[in-house]
């Protein structure tokens, strides 16, 4: 008997998480031309912040001195979230805000030195940055338990028993929609035009008065915030975070979605996210039905890698093309 509700809920959540991460990459790469090969790192920061904050907060409130990684603390967290709805939800919201702020700060900090580099070096250094972060967190036990990870991160809907996933899926999809609407409003404006100009020809944009370096830093900060948000939401969904989860393959997922869906087109990105979510869920579902003689994830990445290469060759502009920035000025054009 297939758990339809569970299937739909997890699909919605995964779609939301993919969307948020990809929208953030679209802002950086699609609109501004910043090749962020280290996207996963900023998502990781959000996940680590939420996980650690929640665990330490609950330990503090309860007055426990046990390590947050001990079975004792795990029990405490599970109990706490079931009994104390309001504190759990408050901690959830506060930690998400903290995740956004801190990952945004990371984005800002990285942008200062990195944005001076030319395209291929920038991509490489961001990739390396992601790996450096993963390595350091992996070996720094107090944050998220090194290689063991941090478990039992309490979902704000733990109290609802079997309704956790459906309720949480509503939250994630609302957040995704809000971020989407915000980005659409932000980018269908002179600011969006400005980003594209910087992307197309940075020197020309400077000669025309744009402070391109400062703007690129802004973009990286904002996009990192959104990535951190997706990381935080992921932490509460999976209830377990470990440094080694945040590997470059996750950055690849976002790139596939952006290029498949259509760079500089947020609707396209959502469409791409939908496609990849369906692909991901289908393979997961299939692995439950058919016994593969190997780990299904391998198949998933073979398919995704091939899709990427094929799109790059045949349709690099993606499923939905980029369109001119939609501002009220368009009306003026129509009347001519």
């Amino acid at each position, binding site marked *: 008997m297939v758990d339809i509700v569970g299937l739909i809920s997890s699909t919605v959540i995964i779609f939301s998480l993919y969307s948020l991460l990809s929208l953030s990459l679209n802002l950086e790469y699609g609109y501004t031309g910043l090749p962020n090969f280290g996207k996963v790192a900023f998502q990781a920061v959000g996940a680590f912040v939420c996980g650690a904050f929640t665990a330490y907060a609950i330990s503090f409130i309860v007055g426990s001195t046990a390590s947050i990684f001990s079975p004792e603390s795990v029990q405490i967290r599970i109990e706490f979230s079931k009994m104390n709805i309001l504190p759990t939800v408050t901690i959830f919201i506060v930690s998400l805000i903290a995740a956004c702020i801190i990952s945004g700060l990371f984005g800002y900090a990285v942008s200062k030195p990195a944005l001076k580099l030319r395209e291929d070096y920038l991509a490489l250094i961001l990739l390396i940055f992601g790996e450096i972060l993963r390595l350091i967190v992996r070996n720094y036990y107090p944050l998220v338990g090194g290689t063991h990870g941090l478990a039992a991160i309490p979902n704000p809907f733990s109290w609802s028993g079997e309704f956790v996933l459906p309720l949480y899926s509503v939250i994630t999809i609302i957040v995704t929609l809000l971020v989407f609407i915000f980005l659409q409003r*932000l980018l269908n*404006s002179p600011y969006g035009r400005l980003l594209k*100009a910087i992307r197309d020809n940075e020197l*020309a944009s400077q*000669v*025309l008065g744009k402070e391109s370096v400062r703007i690129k830093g802004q973009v990286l900060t904002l996009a990192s915030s959104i990535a951190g948000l997706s990381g935080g939401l992921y932490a509460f969904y999976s209830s377990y975070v470990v440094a080694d989860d945040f590997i470059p393959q996750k950055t690849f997922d976002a790139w596939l979605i952006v290029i498949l869906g259509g760079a500089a087109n947020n609707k396209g990105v959502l469409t791409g996210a939908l496609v990849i979510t369906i692909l991901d869920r289908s393979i997961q579902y299939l692995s439950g039905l058919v016994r593969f003689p190997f780990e299904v994830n391998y198949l998933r990445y073979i398919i995704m890698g091939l899709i990427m290469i094929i799109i790059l060759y045949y349709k690099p502009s993606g499923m939905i093309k980029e369109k*001119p*920035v939609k*501002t009220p*000025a368009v009306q003026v054009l129509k009347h001519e």
Partner: protein
Amino acid sequence: MSEILRVEHLKKQFGGIVAVDDVSFSIQERKIIGLIGPNGSGKSTLFNIIAGIYPPDSGEVYFKGERITSLPPHEIFKRGIVKSFQIPSLFYTMTVFENFMIPPREQIGEKLINAPFQFRWAAQEMKFANDAINLLKFLKLNNLSSDSATNLSGGQMKLCEIGRGVMGSPSLMLLDEPAAGVAPYLAKEIFGMILNLRDDKGITFFIIEHRLEIFLEYVDYIYVMNLGKIVFEGPPKEVIESPLVKEIYLGGGK
């Protein structure tokens, strides 16, 4: 007529090559000034220094009395100088109209804080849009407004490059070979537009041209560069009759 641009003892070296060698001159406003010289004489380097793309090794640049030496390009723009590129540097993924909407100054909607709130910048955007449409009509490009910038012909791209610069409301425009590679009749059209823009908007033009014959009837005064130095200057008639200039061009500049 007051002085708008003054350049004093500019020097710029790249490796072992002295591109600009102790150049000084002054330009009056509302004039159309020419800068000619063979390839490699330092003309584009001079423009790049004035536009802030790179600083000079020594020397000063003054604009409307203010020292602007070594300021970055966006600061130069804010003071009222716009440089156009020899190879049109349009924003090729955007339409002609969008290209024209980038330069207007102090756009409220360009700030991150304001952008998501349309009511804050909508009125200003409409004003700029009308300015853009009017300029496009003036340049006879209006039927191409919604076309991608890549769909323009070479001559149209050049006009677009100039028009886009004008949208930045400059007092001084540095045009780097605005009619290069363009058929003579089209070149005349472009220069005619430049004259109109000078008369209509009061812009001073400083123009690099490689081919003397093209803009003789349009310029008020010409500077001649060779090997990084200004070797001659004067009104067009004097320049074209100067034996030195003839030698530079016929002798290949060496």
